[in-house]
């Protein structure tokens, strides 16, 4: 099973479009699982005309204090990088759950094992069968959760397990835009990442950020240039040379394509490309 990612730092360049088209095309003669890792705003299901049903809950372990064991040393508060533990000398620490990302560092450092955990729902995942060879796994975080990396890794784990069960040939991860934890989680351990961008100054700048990240986590990459015939192609060529990463697909700008896309007419979109 080959693990592929469709990613990019800039929003609206066509990450999801590319991921869906790739999955759709591959599903003609191979088994494909598409995993929507943009858990803060998943929308692959909309374009694929699916409804999200039967959510499977995702939980995270949040800290709670066992006052009988706590000696008020404050080590948990000093360790917390999110400033989510308020502590004043000679008083019990207070957990601020709005800021807590459930990283578990306080639990590890507590010398008296005074911090227990409580499971709280942080998101959910869904499975949709698009056609006989094509499944969609969608991850969605609970509104208000600020750190969605752990939710992405859980969804990813579920998707990989599912893909193995179905003996899928490909699993495609569609990431959120950016280079933050949630994107990194989605990209770790993939065999190949396609960095989607557009020939604009912002598209070029953001492309160099994602290629830098991919180089750091040692994921082989290729560039997908969307709206290739508008804007300034040279900007992207420069970065392609700098990172020794080839531009493997160019998608021209077309109003027809946008129309077909908005009408959720995948067959027409595929034809137009």
């Amino acid at each position, binding site marked *: 099973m080959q693990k592929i990612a469709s990613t990019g730092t800039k929003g609206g360049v066509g990450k999801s479009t590319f991921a869906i088209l790739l999955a759709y095309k591959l599903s003609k003669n191979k088994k494909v699982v598409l995993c929507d890792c943009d858990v803060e705003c998943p929308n692959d299901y909309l374009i694929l005309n699916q409804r999200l049903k039967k959510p499977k809950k995702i939980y995270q372990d949040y800290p709670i204090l066992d006052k009988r064991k706590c000696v008020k040393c404050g080590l948990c508060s000093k360790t917390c990088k999110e*400033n*989510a*533990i308020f*502590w004043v000398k000679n008083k019990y620490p207070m957990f*601020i759950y709005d800021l807590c990302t459930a990283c578990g560092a306080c639990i590890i450092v507590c010398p008296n094992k005074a911090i227990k955990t409580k499971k709280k729902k942080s998101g959910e995942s869904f499975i949709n069968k698009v056609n006989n060879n094509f499944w969609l796994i969608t991850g969605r975080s609970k509104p208000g959760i600020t750190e969605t990396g752990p939710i992405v890794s859980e969804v990813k784990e579920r998707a990989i397990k599912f893909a193995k069960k179905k003996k899928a040939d490909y699993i495609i991860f569609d990431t959120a835009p950016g280079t933050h934890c949630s994107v990194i989680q989605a990209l770790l351990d993939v065999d190949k990442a396609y960095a989607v961008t557009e020939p604009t100054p912002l598209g070029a700048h953001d492309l160099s950020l994602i290629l830098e990240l991919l180089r750091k986590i040692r994921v082989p990459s290729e560039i997908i240039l969307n709206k290739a015939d508008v804007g300034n192609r040279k900007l992207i060529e420069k970065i392609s040379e700098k990172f020794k990463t080839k531009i493997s697909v160019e998608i021209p700008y077309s109003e027809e394509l946008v129309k077909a896309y908005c009408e959720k007419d995948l067959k027409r979109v595929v034809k137009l490309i």
Partner: protein
Amino acid sequence: MKIAVTATHRSLDADVDPRFGRCMCFVIVETEGKEIKNHKEISNEAIQATRGAGIQAAQTVANEGAEVVITGNIGPNAFNVLSQTGIKVVTGATGKVKEAVEKYLKGELKETSGPNF
């Protein structure tokens, strides 16, 4: 009584910083009756925090032993931990640090019962 005031620089004559969590520094004023006896300035480490600046700043003033905080505005997280620690919070203060403390001692500045943004 110890009063922590958010300030734009390290002086009794500095302006009150309207921000709590990301204020430039704190002036800790010691009062006796209605008079200022002593004061010292401390830096606010929380100004650099990526998240939870209010919590970290609240921790700083609480560990200084302040009983009252005078500032411009305060958010919900900082307000909640301060009030749970028994520290009174005064918002809407403007002008110089010294004047704000004097106004509070005269009863012209009132304690707030909740965060103001």
